[in-house]
């Protein structure tokens, strides 16, 4: 635990601190960049992009070894992965544009075929240089173990660059993500902005490969945006909230993983963002599950209270247990089922409200107003005092 706090405060070594900062920047870039895709309803495109990096990693390794190099230089591998991920992205676009296959089929096809090719290349590498490919499997699930200082610098610097790019392009990208038609009408080149979005997601994926691994980087691109969506209805707020959620997941995850040996960075970061997601799903105001349950309960209480008071005012017996409970809790009814003074006056008020409503619905032709009758809304909320006085006069005449 103490090591965890040390790690949180960047006290366990320069390299670990750099990794934590890099993970936070990467998490921010992934969350913000992913939310543009999520708002555009293309969240799973990132799945194809991530899997499509593998053949690039393999080919880059083979090419670098063939040129007499080490084969494990991170920048070289990342350039390779970026090229193959870009090809995968183009292939998805091409299939969707040229054939009648839907986008999800195109995504699935590209991710499985590119990943298959990557695995084939990994076995080629295994046979051509025993032992030297060590570290390459790290790209599947990510690894901070054995990360060099330059690697950590690359992640931190690349993450900062992507965040800056998102900041620069936030206006047009928000517009396109939220409403492509409106964006096009406002003179935004939707296709180019779409390409920029994809490019950013690709950059996040490539930078995140070493840290989180290609299978789990998808999680960082999808989970924070979905989580942020619970907290706001505004597109721009969703983008920044997703960035912050991603950054927190990355930072805390990297710190946790630095503080214990058997805690792999990638899965920990993903699980922290998943925990934030579950919390938001349950607790978010208005869109959360708890809020929905409470709203339902409150509605139920109002219905039962009103129906119970109406029954009281007519001196009818009440059998429904929930109604009895609500009326007795508010001391509107005594234990023997007789209304208290407060209950009687409340019942009379509601009964008068009902009578006014029934007159209103007979007399009033504006259905937009009378349509608001739901057995709960007090008539004062809908009609003016003059109109209500008019209804009362009609009531008197009819009795």
């Amino acid at each position: 635990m103490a090591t965890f706090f040390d790690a949180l405060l960047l006290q366990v070594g320069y390299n670990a601190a750099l990794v934590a900062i890099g993970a936070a920047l990467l998490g921010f870039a992934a969350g913000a960049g992913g939310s543009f895709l999520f708002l555009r309803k293309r969240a799973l495109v990132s799945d194809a992009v991530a899997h499509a990096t593998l053949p690039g990693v393999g080919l880059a390794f083979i090419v670098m070894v063939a040129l007499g190099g080490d084969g494990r230089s991170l920048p070289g591998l990342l350039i390779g992965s970026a090229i193959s991920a870009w090809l995968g992205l183009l292939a998805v676009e091409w299939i969707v544009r040229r054939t009648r296959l839907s986008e999800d089929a195109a995504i699935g096809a590209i991710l499985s075929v590119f990943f298959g090719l990557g695995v084939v290349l990994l076995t080629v590498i295994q046979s051509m240089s025993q032992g030297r490919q060590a570290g390459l499997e790290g790209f599947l699930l990510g690894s901070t173990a054995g990360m060099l200082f330059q690697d950590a610098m690359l992640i931190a610097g690349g993450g900062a660059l992507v965040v800056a790019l998102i900041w620069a392009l936030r206006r047009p990208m928000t517009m396109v993500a939220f409403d492509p038609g409106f964006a096009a009408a406002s003179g935004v080149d939707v296709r180019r902005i779409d390409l920029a979005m994809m490019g950013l997601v690709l950059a996040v994926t490539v930078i995140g490969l070493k840290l989180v691994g290609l299978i789990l980087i998808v999680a960082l691109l999808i989970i924070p945006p979905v989580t942020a969506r619970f907290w706001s209805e505004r597109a721009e707020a969703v983008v920044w909230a997703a960035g912050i959620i991603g950054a927190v997941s990355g930072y805390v995850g990297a710190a946790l993983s630095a503080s214990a040996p058997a805690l792999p960075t990638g899965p920990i970061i993903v699980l922290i963002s998943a925990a934030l997601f579950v919390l938001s799903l349950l607790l978010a105001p208005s869109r959360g599950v708890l809020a929905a349950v409470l709203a339902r309960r409150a509605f139920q209480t109002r219905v039962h209270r009103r129906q119970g008071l109406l029954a009281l005012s007519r001196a009818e017996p009440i059998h429904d247990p929930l109604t009895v409970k609500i009326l007795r809790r508010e001391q509107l009814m005594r234990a023997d089922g007789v209304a208290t003074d407060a209950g009687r006056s409340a019942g009379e008020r509601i009964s008068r409200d009902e009578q006014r409503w029934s007159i209103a619905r007979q007399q009033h032709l504006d259905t937009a107003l009378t349509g608001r009758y739901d057995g709960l809304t007090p008539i004062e909320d809908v009609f003016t005092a003059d109109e209500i006085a008019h209804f009362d006069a009609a009531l008197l005449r009819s009795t």
Partner: protein
Amino acid sequence: MGAEFVQFSLTPILIGMFAAMACALPGNFLILRRQALIGDAISHVVLPGIVVAFLITGTVTTWPMLLGAAGAALVAVVLIEAVRRLGRIEPGAAMGVVFTSLFAGGVLLLEQTDTSAVHLDVEHALMGNLEQLIWLRADGWGSLLDPEALRHLPPELPRMALVAGIIAVLTAVFWRPLKLSSFDEGFARTLGMPVTVIGLGLVTAAAAAAVAAFDAVGSIIVIAMFICPPAAARLMTNRLGRQVAWSLLFACLSAIIGYVLAGYGPIWIGARSSVSAAGMVAVVSGIFLALACVFGPARSRVGVAAGG
């Protein structure tokens, strides 16, 4: 094509074919329903299922693994549906949230527990061990008639054949409701079909195929076979019956050609060792899909000129 082929290649190819067909069959309907990525999601969550089964039973025998994987697939489908409904989130994103989280949980469990002693690692889960499903007791084609040798067939072969057979029978029996509810869910509903149950049954069949195939051939083949052969078949014809037939053909050809290319291809070009068969099968299925995208007679949307 002698004894060596029967020993080392026949059973892996057959297992690969049955696995490919078992996945491609439900894949046809998943693609029509735009649920193609369910296969991807299921094959990711199978990992935590297997790890949990290992932690509970302490063994890597087949049945606990299969049950664990099936349980995880079921949990994932329920979770995806719950997230989608409770959070009012679009299906793709809900799927992404659930399968990546469960997969991360699986990897963490794997790292936390000492599973290095047993053959249980992520690489194996991804790539399977198609190459190792050999039939050592065979000494030629005659062994196919020799009951003693047949008893030593890799158990994956009869199991995979059984699963593929069951899925084929189910597809035939439920053909009409499957077809109607996949093309026009609203119409099927007005006919009084239990559309939700059909959908759930389809996903369950897909999960069963995925889990059975996963054990033998790894998740790459599973994901690729769910999507590539049916997608390529969809570009070949406008009739569902023919589409299913095409997809089975593509699946079988991918398994055969992929395995042969992986096992013998490198030797033909002078390399020493073979490459991953699972990866190669996926690549070959991708080549079929690419060809269908360029030449398939039904590749365009209705109302769009061919090649337009």
